[in-house]
């Protein structure tokens, strides 16, 4: 990493940045196609609203509320699920 330029691009927020009760819209899954498929089957689809629930002691794994169910993911996995920039959040989340 070079010098930090103030005001330049912030690193993208991911699911692992969500605090308990916070929610965000999932933008993309930066994981292997096979893993993406499984995560999408569990409800982690791009455009979907995800909220962070409780976590195991120590904060890992985290529990997410997505598409009407609760799913536990390790932080390492949650870090690869990128949230949509909050300024762009529209009405696209089609779920609870």
């Amino acid at each position, binding site marked *: 990493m070079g010098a930090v330029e103030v005001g330049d691009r912030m690193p993208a927020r991911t699911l692992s940045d969500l605090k308990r009760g916070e929610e965000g819209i999932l933008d993309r899954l930066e994981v292997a196609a*096979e893993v993406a*498929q499984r995560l*999408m*089957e569990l409800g982690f689809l791009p455009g979907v609203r995800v909220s962070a629930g409780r976590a195991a002691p120590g904060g890992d794994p985290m529990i997410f509320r997505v598409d009407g169910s609760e*799913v536990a993911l*390790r932080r390492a996995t949650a870090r690869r699920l990128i949230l949509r920039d909050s300024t762009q959040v529209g009405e696209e989340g089609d*779920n609870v």
Partner: protein
Amino acid sequence: MSDFQAASAAKAPPATPKTSGAFSLVAVVGAPNCGKSTLFNRLTGLRQKVANYPGVTVEKRLGRVRVEGGREITLVDLPGIYSLTARSEDERVARGVLLGEMPGLPSPDAVLLVVDSTNLNRNLSLAAPILALGIPTLVVLNMSDDLHSRGGMVDGRRLSERLGVPVVLASAARGEGLETIRAFLSRRSAAPQRLELPVLQDIPGRRRWAVHATGQSGYQAPAAAVWTRRLDSVLLHPLGGPLIFLLVVMAVFQSIFTLAQPLMDGTEAVIAASGLWIGTLLPDSWFRDLLLEGVWAGVGSVLVFLPQILFLFLLIGVMEDSGYLARAAVIADRTMARVGLEGKAFIPLLSAYACAIPAIMATRTIESRRERLATILIAPFMTCSARLPVYVLVIAAFLPEKPLLGPLLGTRAAAMIGLYLLGFGAAVATARLLKSTLLKRRSPLPFTLELPPYRWPTLQSIGLRLADRSLIFLKRAGTVILLVTVVLWFLASVPRTDGEAPEISHSLAGKMGKAVEPVIEPLGFNWKIGIGLITSLAAREVIVGTLGTIYGIEAAEEGGDEGSPGLQQALKQDLTPGAAVALLIFFAFALQCMSTVAVVRRETGGWRLAILQFGYMLALAYFGAWLGKTLVEIWI
């Protein structure tokens, strides 16, 4: 896997004789946690047959259902799957069965597609590929009682029109909707279906299709499960959660020893009394000796463990069906990750403290093959109940009871805890070793776990599981252990001279013990212990009965009577303290249980890992025992 492909290529499915379009084989399909197995159990009851698909580790459950006209049809319960892509073994098997590619199983005539109606959008999008197969299908909207009680609704008829297949609202747990399902199964002809489906590999597309279909059927998702939130705020509390978790583990542990104890004592008394009774009925003969010294003593000493094993399964069953198990797995995940395992490995390892066999079967819940194999390979290090009789016998013989921590902990209990820790340590070290060698390649799928809402466990599903496990256990006692004790009894009573049984040292068994003596001599074991080690290859606890027989103790005192002073005295004369420690360590590490080896072979789909595990544990046992003896001798 290649094994599986080779197997399916080698044998084409046999053609099935079908009677005028009536169903004869129906597959039950659904995602994990949709209540699929509950429905299967409801429909088939105890008329189930469990086996494995050839070459893979996936369980094959078949059950019989009686339908209209007294005819019986077969249901096959497929593993819970999220899709039909061939990523996991479960998915490959489900796909294979549905497409009629499984050897020995015809293609199903119809499908019961079980979906969780409380989360219909997601479940239906997962179900799309199964609807697209074009097999006659009944969509079972399960858990409709939950849906309604939480204020949700769906119009089954309109959904049926949308999907082009019949739909029924049901609750497998409460037995609602079963009549419609039975009527479907009794059907003689299947209506053709036409269904417009999105591209199947496109999950977002499938999802939009599902939302559209449910929207047109008046689907309203239920409100959040209030009780689940409330319970989770306690059970997943940052401090309270782990605390309750530890309490639950300790309670499970404690109760399989304390609460099961009266039942075990009762079983033992019944076995002893029935043995005595039979003894008075039969005339003095070799057959009477065989029956009492061989069968009753040997098999009886194993049957005693049945209450303990049932108790463990009852507790695990309640945890699983209520939904707590998933929370426990989340809480345990981080600790397990340190050893290189995942949270779901925790329950199988806990069960292994009762018996490695059900534990290894319980690893089926672990999705990643690598994690699952690691768990299978270390499970037998956990101190199972079959080791207890051996530990109790040796510790009682060599270690005088003295208080260590006042009335709380005595020397004998401390020694016992030490042996538990020894096994646990070996398991952890082995898991580490496996992760850096044999199972180095990381699994492609990360840890994911869906947390189902809490539900009351039903008596039926737990009762069925207990019955299932008892049968497996009784089968084992009735076959392997029976065989070993009878064979041992014969070996110890031949060759006969002048119609008299030989002295044990001259019998065939004695000769076998003497043959292995040079190998076990460095551990301080003589030929008598040698016979015990050979017979305990079948099952650990057999050594107690064997030593009892060998030391020529009266029949009444034999078998399971591990506290008998006669046997203890005899052992004390034959073993130095160092050799006693060696014997304990040997039993802590060695895989002396043919049933476990057989289950590992079945679950890993081949002999390779089973043999490797047996050899590794034997080597560890031998050198551990030698080291233990040497250290004790230096110390004393």
